[in-house]
């Protein structure tokens, strides 16, 4: 469960299905008569920030839900560290090291920061089946995540409702980090955030990449993603139309890809 070993297998130079962190092969997902994803093949490298962009209904949520274990693909395979995996539910994905931060953040407003981070997985101590929450340890570990990994300073005993949008996103990311994941998938992490808050979140994600994590951002907004990401995959009507880098595609090109599925002109 160490995140450090991702750095040893990481590297932008390693190409091919067997060395990428996540390799998606001929993935297809059908809901009734609707084809949400059609033959998508995609590599996500270890230790990169990958953005998956597309318009509403392009299939990005479906792909996210397959990666997080909420959906099973109709056809095709997902490889994780070169091994084929199939996630029956979100805890399968979690056990494998993929943690998802949903758009609604799933924070409990009446509870404080540390309690939100450790809900469902409090450190306990006790004898045999008699387990009690170790609050000192809970706050210590929460402090460590916020302080060391996110490099922030949040009052851990303050209820979550008192925090701003950007800070709430950070708290949700902190909760994902408490599971010690190798990959974090974020659903629209900056929609509804101010410019300042967006920068705060992106600064944090860059920090996490430096710590060896692989980050997948699912988003429909491209502008602010451009400065941050290593690579961009564009989905259009369930198909992956292009994987590019910010150097190879400007905003206009990307917009055209999202809207028409083709590079403009």
């Amino acid at each position, binding site marked *: 469960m160490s995140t450090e070993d991702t750095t040893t297998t990481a590297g932008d130079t390693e190409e091919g299905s067997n060395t990428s962190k996540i390799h998606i092969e001929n993935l297809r997902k059908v809901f009734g008569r609707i084809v949400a994803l059609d033959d998508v093949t995609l590599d996500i490298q270890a230790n990169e920030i990958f953005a998956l962009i597309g318009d509403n209904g392009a299939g990005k949520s479906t792909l996210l839900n397959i990666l997080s274990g909420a959906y099973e693909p109709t056809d095709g395979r997902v490889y994780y560290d070169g091994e084929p995996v199939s996630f029956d539910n979100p805890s399968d994905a979690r056990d494998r090291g993929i943690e998802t931060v949903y758009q609604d953040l*799933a924070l409990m407003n*009446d509870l404080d920061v540390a309690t939100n981070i450790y809900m469902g997985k409090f450190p*306990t101590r006790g004898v045999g089946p008699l387990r009690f*929450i170790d609050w000192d340890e809970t706050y210590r570990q929460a402090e460590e995540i916020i302080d060391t990994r996110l490099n922030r300073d949040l009052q851990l005993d303050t209820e979550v409702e*008192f*925090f701003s949008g950007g800070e709430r996103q950070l708290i949700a990311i902190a*909760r994902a980090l408490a599971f010690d994941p190798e990959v974090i998938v974020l659903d629209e992490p900056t929609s509804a955030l101010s410019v300042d808050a967006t920068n705060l979140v992106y600064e944090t994600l860059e920090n996490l990449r430096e710590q060896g994590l692989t980050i997948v951002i699912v988003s429909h907004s491209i502008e602010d993603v451009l400065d941050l990401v290593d690579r961009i995959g564009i989905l259009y009507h369930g198909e992956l139309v292009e994987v590019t880098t910010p150097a190879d595609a400007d905003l206009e090109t990307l917009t055209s890809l999202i809207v028409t599925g083709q590079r403009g002109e």
Partner: protein
Amino acid sequence: MSTERSTQRRWFSVSDDSLLTILEHMIWPILAIVIIGVLATVPGTLSTFTSVRLILWSAVPIGLLVLAESICLLSGHFDLSIGAVAGFSAMFTAMVIGNAPQDWNVVHNAWIGFALVISVGLLIGFVNGYMVGVVGINPFLQTLSFLIIFQGARTAINTQPGSGLPHLFVQPGGTPDFAIGVFLLAFVLFGIVMRYTRFGQAVYATGSDDHAAREVGVSTERVIIAVYAISGVLSAVAGLMIAGYTSVVPPLIGDGLVFQAFAGAVIGGISLFGGRGRVTGALGGVILIQIIQSALSNSNLVSSTQNQMINGIVLFVAILLYSTQDRIRSRILASD
């Protein structure tokens, strides 16, 4: 990479912060004022150790019912049937184990009685929890119908006092120190479970935001079933304590107690909307309700027939205070 520390830390103004702290512990100044008022007007209520012990003893059933209501409220639900469950489980048990002429005369054994009264409460609570948590019935409708059913069932099986009980059966509620011990133990255990177990925190999480709780892996269905089952058991124990206090099962046992329990929980700071509240506050609420009751029955101002009205007024005041607190809270949140 920026290593600059975030300046996003939220600093409340000192006055807002202390105002919120005061509001969250509102029960204690209220309790202090009421005690001073009682000492000034009806000093006999609290003047001797015996009178204080009597207050605590009479507070035992309502104390258990406040806990029963509190755990439901903390989980974001509520239970209108607690008084009816207390009444039915005690009356049903009395009919089984009593040897008076109108009883069913099945078996005359106190231990079977203890097991039966708790099992009945547990079963009714479990069904409440299953219907609300799994089937998805609105808690108000579910527990209202169970209130009517079990209050009616209690009267249907016996309109007389449930008498002829084994002596041992009325001992727990009839021995003041033992009953007070059960009451205090229930609060301590409840407090430990809520604060120091994953289940307790899952109850708070469910009450705060059940959707979010589910997303982070809390099994909210199981939490809801457990909450109502615990509520049922606590209610049944309250019924047992009432039977002990009066040595018989009164014909109208449990009637109206749900209102007192609500008043005690809410004035003790247990949120009507779930996710917030401390067990110590609920204890303060119980003591407050019982001191008011005892002071009123010791004074010439009010007769016992007016008790329920006074309870209603206490509940109303509690709700007013609570809404004020909520409004101030949202104002502070909005001003961020």
